[in-house]
Each structure stands twice: as structure tokens, then as C-alpha cells.
């Protein structure tokens, strides 16, 4: 059995082949680090999540049955580690975050109706705009944030996202819709202001 995309041998991993482990680390550390960084918003915590993900992968590789891709299994471990880290940090979160956690089950009706798609393309590429995109993701409740990152940033399918998070596909779809609608509101507010500024 091999990891289809990258030809990493699962048998070699299971037998403790360190050369194959090193190949796995090099193949997946980039995407897993990006997931952790988007979830946690700071580099030291993201590095801890990355390290713990591979430590757990080494410990539990014999339990990997190959029912999902190796990458999905690693995303699953990394997602759990990142969610645990977010929850550990919770006492430091502010009141606004708590309110957002409570209403994460609601589909928010759109309130922003500015059409900002017509902004010049370079407006979307500035470091300020990229920072606004990152801030918006950080403000999502973590249960929505992880779904959005896996599906729309890491590009997992709905089925792979549901396997990584141990959720039903319908729960993934519902959370994804909520996350996307919240992000649209945030970006509409930011880019709407940019549009007003350019019109002046």
C-alpha cells in the first residue's frame, strides 16, 4: 500500500523505516504548518502543532488502516492538535469571541450588500488586504474555522473534510456555509470601505 499522491510506502512507515518517515515529514510539513498557522495565528503555536502531529503520527502509524488517504489522516491529527491548542488558550480570549462561539450554529442573514467585486485586482493583492483575509479567518469560531481551512484553503473534498474531522458530510456542508457567509460579511465590510475610499 502506498500514499497515492506522493508514493510514500505505508508498509515502510509501519515497519519503522526512518527514511520513509523523513520523506513523509518533508512532504506534508508545509500544508500542515499552514493549517496550524491559519488556525492559531502565531508561529510558535503552529510549530508546536506541527511537531505534535508528527510525534502522534509516529506513535500511531500501526493503527492507520488506509481507509482514508495518508494526507487526510495527518490532517485529522493536526486538526485535533490545533483545536486542542485553541481550546487551551480560551481563558485568554475576549468577550466578543465568547459571543461568537455561542452563535456559531446560526446562519447569519446577509447584511452587507455592497458589490466590491469590481475593485481593481491589485486591491486584493496588497499586504493590507491579505492581513484582512487572515484576520477574518481568525475571527471565525474554531469549529467553523477548521472546516473552512480544510475545505477552501487546503482543498480537501467534503468527504475528506468529514473524515478528517469525524463529522457527517451534511455537518461539514452546514459549517462550511456558515463560515463562508461570515467571511463574506467581514470582507464586504473591509472591501466596501476600500471601494468608498477609491470613489472619493
Amino acid at each position, binding site marked *: 500500500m502506498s500514499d497515492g499522491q506522493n508514493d510514500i510506502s505505508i508498509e515502510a512507515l509501519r515497519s519503522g523505516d*526512518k527514511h520513509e518517515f*523523513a520523506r513523509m*515529514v518533508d512532504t506534508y*510539513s508545509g500544508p500542515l504548518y499552514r493549517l496550524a498557522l491559519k488556525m492559531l495565528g502565531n508561529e510558535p503555536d503552529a*510549530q508546536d502543532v506541527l511537531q505534535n502531529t508528527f510525534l502522534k503520527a509516529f506513535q500511531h502509524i500501526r493503527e492507520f488502516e488506509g481507509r482514508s488517504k495518508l494526507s487526510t489522516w495527518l490532517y485529522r491529527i493536526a486538526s485535533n492538535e490545533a483545536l486542542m491548542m485553541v481550546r487551551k488558550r480560551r481563558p485568554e480570549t475576549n468577550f466578543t469571541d465568547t459571543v461568537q462561539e455561542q452563535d456559531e450554529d446560526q446562519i447569519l442573514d446577509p447584511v452587507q450588500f455592497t458589490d466590491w467585486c469590481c475593485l481593481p485586482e491589485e486591491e486584493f493583492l496588497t499586504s493590507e488586504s491579505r492581513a484582512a483575509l487572515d484576520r477574518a479567518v481568525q475571527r471565525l469560531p474554531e469549529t467553523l474555522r477548521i472546516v473552512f481551512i480544510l475545505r477552501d484553503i487546503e482543498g480537501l473534498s467534503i468527504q475528506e473534510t468529514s473524515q478528517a474531522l469525524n463529522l457527517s458530510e451534511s455537518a461539514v456542508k452546514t459549517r462550511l456555509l456558515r463560515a463562508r*457567509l461570515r*467571511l463574506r460579511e467581514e470582507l464586504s465590510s473591509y472591501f466596501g470601505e476600500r471601494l468608498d475610499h477609491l470613489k472619493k
Partner: protein
Amino acid sequence: MSENEQPTCQTLLCLLSDYVDGELSEELCREIERHTAGCDNCRVVIDTLRKTISLYRASAAEPAEISTETRDHLFKTLNLEDYMQH
């Protein structure tokens, strides 16, 4: 939804993700397009939702890499230094 029945704004909201992901039937897509032709707010919501998703996907199109320092530290912690490919 029947051929003559138009989706409401609220119904459309629940179908949005599937619609922008291209996962709805042709019939439902036509219903939504008929609705948005007469509902400017829903048209804007769909267009800006598509743009929102495309901006995040574009930001992820760059290769995900870790710094040399992070990689060195990771391999050291995992006791894999002897297996690092340079």
C-alpha cells in the same frame, strides 16, 4: 421545487454553498438565476461569496513551505536528523 416556483431569498441562502460549488441540479440553478435576475441583493451576495472563496483559494495556491530553521528544529525533535535530505 416546481418549475414555476421561485426560491425565496431565505431558501437561496441555504443552497448557496452547493450553488457556488456547482453541485446543484441544472433545474435548481435555473430557478436561482431567475430569482437573482430580479433580486439585486441576492445577486450581490452570490457574486461576493464567489469572490470571497476565490481570494482564499488564491492565497493558498502559493506553495506551503516551512522555514529552514523550523525544518531543522522539527527533524531534530523527531530524531530524524540523519535522514534529512538537503
